């Protein structure tokens, strides 16, 4: 029953969605990150792991346009096949990407939501920024996405400030994914949540990413989260990538001393 036709295709020939080359960022004399290079294909989840100060959040912020890198390239392949360096794109085009084709899920949902407009409007706003104008359709899409992230649709008109942390995070995910982004960045998406809420959110993210076929970069310090969500891992230390590869290979057969230390430091439950 194996689909030999798809299996036979040489996937290494497909062009990547994102190619990062030699990305670097310094804060004055201090190193944020440097010499970071990787390729990312559609449907692939790349985990970036490391401790605080390893440069993983700096890297994510550079990739997602939150801060400017000071060296290297972020090559993105547009829907029409054209490849452009995000770093040299004119500002309006960068903003257009961030409004629709790219999505960013912040660690703290309060950074990604507007707390004083309704849950429905938080989702609808991103659609409207993409050009949607029909009220009924926008509201329908908002309610559809609320139920997909398991928020009761009778909460559509409630303000997110009244939601629990876990609900706010699910709302932020709905707001991000409603435009059907091709590339999603997530910064510690389960950080700061109760363990029971984390499991639900992880399962949700896993299902949605699979369903949408989006490429995804997830920063986390939690190796269990990385194992569950990421196909591939990059381990960062002191601003550099010290090890990269298949998630289970990096975690079960770590080669770099730092990766071995990280893996052996996890408490067994």
């Amino acid at each position, binding site marked *: 029953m194996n689909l030999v036709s798809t*299996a*036979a295709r040489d996937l290494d020939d497909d062009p990547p969605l994102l190619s990062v080359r030699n990305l670097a960022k310094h804060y004055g004399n201090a190193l944020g990150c440097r010499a970071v290079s990787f390729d990312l294909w559609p449907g692939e989840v790349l985990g970036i792991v490391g401790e605080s100060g390893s440069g993983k959040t700096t890297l994510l912020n550079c990739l997602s346009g939150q801060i400017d890198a000071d060296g290297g390239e972020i090559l993105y392949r547009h829907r029409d096949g054209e490849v452009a360096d995000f770093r040299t794109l004119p500002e309006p085009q960068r903003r257009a990407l961030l409004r629709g084709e790219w999505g960013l899920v912040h660690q703290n949902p309060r950074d990604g939501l507007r707390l004083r407009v309704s849950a429905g409007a938080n989702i609808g706003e991103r659609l409207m920024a993409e050009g949607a104008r029909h009220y009924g359709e926008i509201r329908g899409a908002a309610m559809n996405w609320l139920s997909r992230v398991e928020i009761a649709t009778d909460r559509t008109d409630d303000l997110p400030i009244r939601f629990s942390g876990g609900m706010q995070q699910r709302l932020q995910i709905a707001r991000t994914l409603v435009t059907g982004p091709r590339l999603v960045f997530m910064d510690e998406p389960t950080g700061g949540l109760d363990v029971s809420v984390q499991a*639900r959110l992880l399962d949700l993210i896993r299902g949605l990413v699979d369903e949408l076929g989006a490429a995804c970069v997830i920063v986390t310090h939690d190796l269990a989260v990385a194992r569950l969500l990421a196909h591939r891992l990059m381990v960062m230390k002191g601003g550099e990538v010290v090890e990269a590869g298949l998630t289970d290979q990096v975690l*079960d057969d770590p080669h770099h001393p730092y990766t071995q230390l990280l893996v*052996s430091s996890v408490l067994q439950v």
Partner: protein
Amino acid sequence: MTLMLSVQGVAKTFTLHTQGGVKIPVFRDLDLDVSAGECVVLHGPSGAGKSTLLRAMYANVLPDAGEIRVRHGGRMVDLASASSRTVLQVRRHTLGYVSQFLSVIPRVPTLNVVAEPLIRDGLDIDTAHERAAAMLSRLNVPERLWSLAPATFSGGEQQRVNIARGLIAEMPVLLLDEPTASLDAANRDVVVELVAEAKQRGAAIVGIFHDAATRDAVADRLYPLTPAKAA
């Protein structure tokens, strides 16, 4: 017979950097060919590297030397040097692995856990669920458990879910790491039958079976491993 899996000159030494750089040699210069329809059982005492070799065949462990080639879509792909994407593709369509333990995904119901490999392979959800149900019945997993996540199941129940998930997609190459370890005699017999059926349809199988009766029932030949001498 068609060559499905070929291990050549494979060596593995674990270096423990967190423990003073201690080196633990596991094996070297291993060669093993497995053809379609054949079941080879890795045989040797504890510590001989059976599981490590099996995990290397799944690219979960990266060998220091040698090639591990798998027939994938008509050509041999070396997992030791392939890109992560290629390895994932080979695992998705060609190479199945049943470990001793189920890695539990929070909240996902048993039926979905078992059906997932079929759905990922492109089968529609209804057919995939039907086949998952048939597989679970065959392995005597009670129907009342199918809608529950397997996290709270007994060891034997989890292992049967794991076997169902590992065998359902009928992969051309199967790696089995003590799949019968915590099963009763009746369920062991079901696994022996499933392995026989997999061989019948042409799967190449490499396994570890400690139980002598099961081993004798499934093995076409044994591949002996001995503990490596300290370097």
